[in-house]
């Protein structure tokens, strides 16, 4: 089943879906396993697994630090792929890769797709790869049936959004605000306008990320978005309280 359809089905049953994020290898693959188990057990609908990169340009300080710590701890791309294979086999929900383009490029983009497909990865989020630069990437995504997740930003015009929707699949990742991951977002009037613009531009489900960390945040997205994305918040939680805190936190979000 395609990712989009899966999401539509799930959405039919829930007011809003939850996507969580984690950085592979941070603080360790061991902890990754536990965190993912807690997430899945507590009803997360899909998970983006970030393969660490040394130059995570679009990430804020928490995720940046996680990327660099993972690499320093020796997390190799190969190890990330191995863990991902283990995880997708163990859990029934869809998993996506989030990473920067150089990781694919250096691995070999086609080879990377082949590997990801073999593992059962359902989508790629690559924040530094606009469709203009993604010809090969988009072709391979189609070939391997892996959803290339397009990104909207508050600075995107409606025209631009429509263009982005075309090659997009799975869902659209709507960046909630200017800036990098990890800072608080205000879900105000401007935000509502922005979401309305997103909605007009595409039929794909809309995920909203950047700065979502509480039930209140999630609630305020209901009706405006299909998926709430929890990123930095769980990394901080694991840093501060360990993986066991993730389950209760997720359970309390909706």
């Amino acid at each position, binding site marked *: 089943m395609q990712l989009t359809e899966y999401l539509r089905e799930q959405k039919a049953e829930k007011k809003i879906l939850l996507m969580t994020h984690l950085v592979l290898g941070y603080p360790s693959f061991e902890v990754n396993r536990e965190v993912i188990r807690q997430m899945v057990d507590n009803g997360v609908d899909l998970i983006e697994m970030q393969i660490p*990169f*040394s*130059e*995570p*340009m*679009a990430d*804020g*300080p928490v995720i*940046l*630090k996680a990327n*660099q710590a993972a*690499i320093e701890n020796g997390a*190799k*791309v190969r190890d990330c792929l191995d863990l991902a294979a283990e995880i997708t086999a163990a859990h029934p929900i869809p998993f996506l890769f989030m990473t*920067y*383009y*150089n*990781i694919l*490029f*250096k*691995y070999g983009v086609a080879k990377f797709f082949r590997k990801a497909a073999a593992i059962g990865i359902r989508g790629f989020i690559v*924040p*530094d*790869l*606009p469709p*203009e*630069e993604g010809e090969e990437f988009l072709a391979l995504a189609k070939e391997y049936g892996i959803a290339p997740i*397009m*990104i*909207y*930003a*508050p*600075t*995107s*015009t409606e025209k*631009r959004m429509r263009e*982005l929707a075309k090659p997009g699949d799975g869902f659209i990742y709507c*960046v909630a605000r*200017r*800036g*990098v991951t990890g800072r608080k977002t205000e879900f105000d009037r401007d935000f509502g306008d922005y979401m309305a613009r997103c909605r007009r531009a595409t039929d794909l489900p809309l995920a909203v990320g950047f700065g979502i960390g509480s039930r209140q945040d999630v609630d305020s997205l209901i009706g405006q978005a299909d998926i709430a994305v929890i990123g930095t918040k769980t990394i901080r939680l694991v840093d501060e309280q360990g993986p066991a805190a993730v389950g209760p936190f997720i359970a309390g979000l909706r």
Partner: protein
Amino acid sequence: MDKKGYYGQWGGAFIPEVLYETFRELGRAFEEARSDPDFWPEYLRLMSSYSCRPTPLTHAANLSDHFGGAGIYIKREDLNHTGAHKANNVMGQGLLVKRMGKKRVIAETGAGQHGVATATMAAKFGFACTIYMGEEDVARQRPNVFWMEKLGATVIPVTSGSRTLKDAINEAFRDWVTSMDDTHYVMGTVCGPHPFPEMVAWFQSIIGREARRQILAAHGRLPARVFACVGGGSNAMGIFQGFLDDPEVELIGVEAGGHGIETGQHAARLAGDDGSAGVAQGYKTMFLQDSDGQMRDTHSVAAGLDYVGVSPILSDLWEKKRVRFTAATDREVMAALELTMRKEGIIPALESAHAFVQAFKEAPAMSRGEALIINMSGRGDKDIFTIADAFKDPSWKQFIIDKGRQYAAD
């Protein structure tokens, strides 16, 4: 140029969606400026009244005699306001910012030269200014930090990654994705996403335009070879553009050989075999990276050359064999610096001294009727802490020890 923003297979604009409109606007402003017949003259006027352009081409008679081969000419970018070629780029972008109506500029800096130049431009144009600088570079280049702050800029030490130039670039982008509405990112070299390489190369082409005219006047014909150091590649592209269409002029880029290419502690992306194609910091080029695509730590005595990437335009010219690349080691650099000071009374920046090294290697075997140009991208005053360190100057050390004790006692 091939595909928009590409040079052969290199370049592009690998940018987050949030910056899409910003880049469109920047590209438009740049194209408009470039096709506005008044813009370049305005730029020239600024550079000749605020900086000291045209900068001279100095005939280094003593060095020429010393090596007994080619006539050695030095293009004097050190005589620019703020002491390096960085001013050319920064002032040009300043004019663009004014056109775009933005009120704030941000920049990354490694050696601090680009930071000082940007802070200077911001003061001149009345912009707010934030400079990102790796924490390690902040420590290494305190004098430049001091000047940036005095010029009114806020200097933010970057504590992520290797805490050097590349991390400062990432951090500047992180600022920009928040602040793009009123802020322009003044990229310091011919790197980064399109249109930066093209834009910076255009502003820096002022070096090559002058140098071509000057060498013809001084030497009567074109030089046989032109040498430039290559960090990001802006000073090299600047002078090379004066001679790209002259196949008889050989162009040589000199990268940081650090402790020697064989040691792995260097910043040679195109010379040697350690670089490989990659995409980072918004563009595709040859990077120093591991097999996973993680960027490696680099080393050079010259902070301005200590960078993992290189201009996509230079990667293309390298691939097409139009520019030859070599590397100079830290040790060779100190020797060339010393010789140049003694023989000509000229103190090149550590970065620039890399170009001198290679020119000195090649001059003796060239014929007396030939000329070579070395692009002296900046002056060495800024490097006094590094140079005094490298020469292990005892009186300098004592001076600093005494000064430190005096401060500690305050």
